[in-house]
């Protein structure tokens, strides 16, 4: 995976950017402070499910990828999102 500056992006870098994107939609800021790959986006971070579409569009813009509706079906945790994005960047 190469980012826009030509640098290799590891999982930690993708996660950092994923968390930054999620932050405006997070309702439980305490959960955000201890976020990990296992953190559930809807249940733990309390992101409104109706706003998931905005989150996905933000992922597409940030990483310059396209995410199909079906791809989102397997995304429950932050780690799922990181893995999905990583697979699109490969």
């Amino acid at each position: 995976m190469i980012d826009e500056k030509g640098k290799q992006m590891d999982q930690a870098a993708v996660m950092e950017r994923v968390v930054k994107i999620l932050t405006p939609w997070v309702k439980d800021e305490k959960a955000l402070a201890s976020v990990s790959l296992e953190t559930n986006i809807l249940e733990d971070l309390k992101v409104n499910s109706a706003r998931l579409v905005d989150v996905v569009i933000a992922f597409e813009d940030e990483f310059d990828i396209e995410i199909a509706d079906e791809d989102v079906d397997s995304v429950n945790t932050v780690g799922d999102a990181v893995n999905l994005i990583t697979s699109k960047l490969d």
Partner: protein
Amino acid sequence: MSGESRLELSGATRIHHLVQRAIGRLVAPLWLPIAAVVLRFFCGHRIENRPSVQEEFRRLRADTRSPLLICANHLTLVDSFVIAHALAPAWRYAIDFDALPWNTPEETNFANTPLHRALAYLAKCIPIRRGGSREDIANVLNRVVYLLDRGEVALLFPEGGRSRSGRISSEGAGWGVGRIVGAVPGCRVLCVYLRGRSQVTWSDRPVKGDRIYVDLACIEPKSDLRGARRTRDLAQQIIKQLVHMEESYFDGRQ
């Protein structure tokens, strides 16, 4: 029907639908008239301009070449029943059971006792758990897509839940409705604006004896966008139509 939907259902789920539809159709002549009597006489709900609403729905149903998804604003727990009651008389559903919309009530509201589960099953409900796993929600959406592709009617509330403010939130359209419309080529959306004349915000039921205002508008959302932007664009077209209908309602009251 197009048969071009991108979503696939398992054989077991298809059989499940066939059985649910068959049992529902079999017992419909028993419970449909009772439900209509309860709504009309015990609850006292009267649908304004019901003949013209039913004529419009009958006309839309007559065109079975393209799928029909009903999208409505959501203020009470019984909106789906009231909408079905408004769109056609009970006897018509008994004859044309496919016209009775499938709907996706919140599981915790309608499937918490064996009796409720049985009634929901007979009334063509596919319970959904808001905030549930993406896989479970995707499975429900896939089932709705499958049913629409077969020429059946489904009913969704794009806002996902009852509006706490009593007004449609233009930010409220979820992922699901856009995804369904995007997956069903040529899908028509029958927007239904429903509101008891005494309704202020949200509630379990309309006020007893209330007159119910119903407005219909059929649109065919389209988008040249791709991916999630397309899904959001399609959902927003529906919400904008409902917001427009709500504005017309309140303008008419002034």
